[in-house]
């Protein structure tokens, strides 16, 4: 099917959580013509490979604000989309294994309280009451926030696509953007593998691939793909509710509604690049660390293990900004391993920008300029 000569107000590149949330909010706020272009099948990017964790326990105002406002939206989203997103607020339990780490987590909680988040500091024993399979030895303290949650990334993508189509928008899969026709400082046409489309405004929501789109526009976006590995076990009866994470060990794991455990661990040696193959490093290190934290899980069988990309910026904070070289392009990328959870609020902000409204939160902290000007403070609360 060729698609030449169609014209849209807005063309969004990338049908991950960011692209689809943007299209949804754009239509919800009264926007009319929007199409989302996706090079593969729905969910083939990072969103379809991610852990589905949603938390507001962050270590910087930038991430706390996005996450908190996103949870406000997540709470209403299943009803708005009229679909089961497997959204469940079972909390996040964050473990500290040294005095230094405990201090950082305490400071984070202090900061979170300033933004109205009800996170709590727990003793190892209190943490074990919430996650009975926890081995408390070595744990100094934990922090917990009941409002943190999880949702199914795939169900979210499909529910969004269905709603977008019902509202008159389009989502076109298997259509790759391969270039742009630029005149002056404006994109006039988006060139795809199925023909070109005319657009007034373009959104780059291509996550780990956004640097490639940047390059096509003559812009250098500091977003690098880093492979991350994740696995799922067989199903078990219900053992625990929250997502359990440790920043120092780089591990996270949670039990899904059907009973399987999903978890991952970051490899500190990982280099940037598109390496999609699973490694043998992962199952060993994941199993070892998981069994240290929850020894009973040694008996559980791993079913599958796969990889995806974190789309990482130098400070692990996102880019939500107008292009610096092309007037009618907006970049929403660089979510550094937590783009799914903040996608509702990011989609809302980008939709506001597309409709010429002033964004409902200050987007200055998410500027591209900050990297050039060296104003970067690294987020401490990244896992994996």
């Amino acid at each position, binding site marked *: 099917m060729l698609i030449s000569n169609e014209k849209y107000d807005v063309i969004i590149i990338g049908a991950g959580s960011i692209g689809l949330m943007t299209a949804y909010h754009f239509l919800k706020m009264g926007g009319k013509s929007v199409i989302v272009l996706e090079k593969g099948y729905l969910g083939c990017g990072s969103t379809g490979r991610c852990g589905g964790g949603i938390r507001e326990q962050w270590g910087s105002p930038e991430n706390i604000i996005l996450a908190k406002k996103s949870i406000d939206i997540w709470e209403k989203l299943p009803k708005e989309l009229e679909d089961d997103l497997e959204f469940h607020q079972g909390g996040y339990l964050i473990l500290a294994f040294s005095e230094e780490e405990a201090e950082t987590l305490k400071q984070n909680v202090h900061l979170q309280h300033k933004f109205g988040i009800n996170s709590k500091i727990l003793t190892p024993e209190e943490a074990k009451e919430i996650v009975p399979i926890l081995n408390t030895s070595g744990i100094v303290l934990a922090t917990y926030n009941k409002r943190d949650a999880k949702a199914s990334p795939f169900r979210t993508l499909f529910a969004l696509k269905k709603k977008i189509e019902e509202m008159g928008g389009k989502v076109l899969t298997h259509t790759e953007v391969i270039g742009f026709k630029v005149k002056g400082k404006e994109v006039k046409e988006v060139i795809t593998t199925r023909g070109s489309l005319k657009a007034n405004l373009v959104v780059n929501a291509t996550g780990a691939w956004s640097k490639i789109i940047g390059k096509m526009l003559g812009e250098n976006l500091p977003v690098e793909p880093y492979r991350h590995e994740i696995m799922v076990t*067989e199903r078990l009866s219900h053992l625990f509710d929250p997502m359990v994470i440790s920043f120092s060990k780089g591990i996270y794991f949670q039990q899904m509604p059907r009973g399987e455990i999903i978890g991952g661990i970051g490899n500190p040696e990982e280099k940037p690049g598109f390496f999609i193959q*699973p490694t043998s490093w992962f*199952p060993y290190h994941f199993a070892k660390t*998981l069994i240290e934290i929850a020894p009973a899980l040694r008996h559980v069988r791993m079913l*599958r*293990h796969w990889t995806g990309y974190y789309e990482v910026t130098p400070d692990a904070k996102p880019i939500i900004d107008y292009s610096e070289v092309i007037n009618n392009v907006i970049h929403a990328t660089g979510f550094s391993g937590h783009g799914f959870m903040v996608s509702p609020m990011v989609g809302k902000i980008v939709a506001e920008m597309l409709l010429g409204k002033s964004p409902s939160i200050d987007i200055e902290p998410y500027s591209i300029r900050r990297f050039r000007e060296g104003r970067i403070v690294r987020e401490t609360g990244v896992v994996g």
Partner: protein
Amino acid sequence: MKIVCRCYDITEEEIIETIKKYNITSLEELKRILNVGMGECQGRTCIPIIISIMSRILGKSPDDIEVPKPRPPAFTVRLGDFIGDEDAHK
């Protein structure tokens, strides 16, 4: 009612309903929404049946259905076995 995926108790009716509800065109998509093909048997039991259902519903030849990539490990492995913890078998 006909069970197609025994690992996840998914029926033929559920598969057809989901394909229609979300306009699903590939097995990669279907498996992530229903978990079909992702159970203990790694889809060895149900994937061939699902391909034939999809080809019937979508009016495509079975060869044109995008088939999921096999994921390691090829057979399920106890987590304890990855770190060679012997006593765990007890």
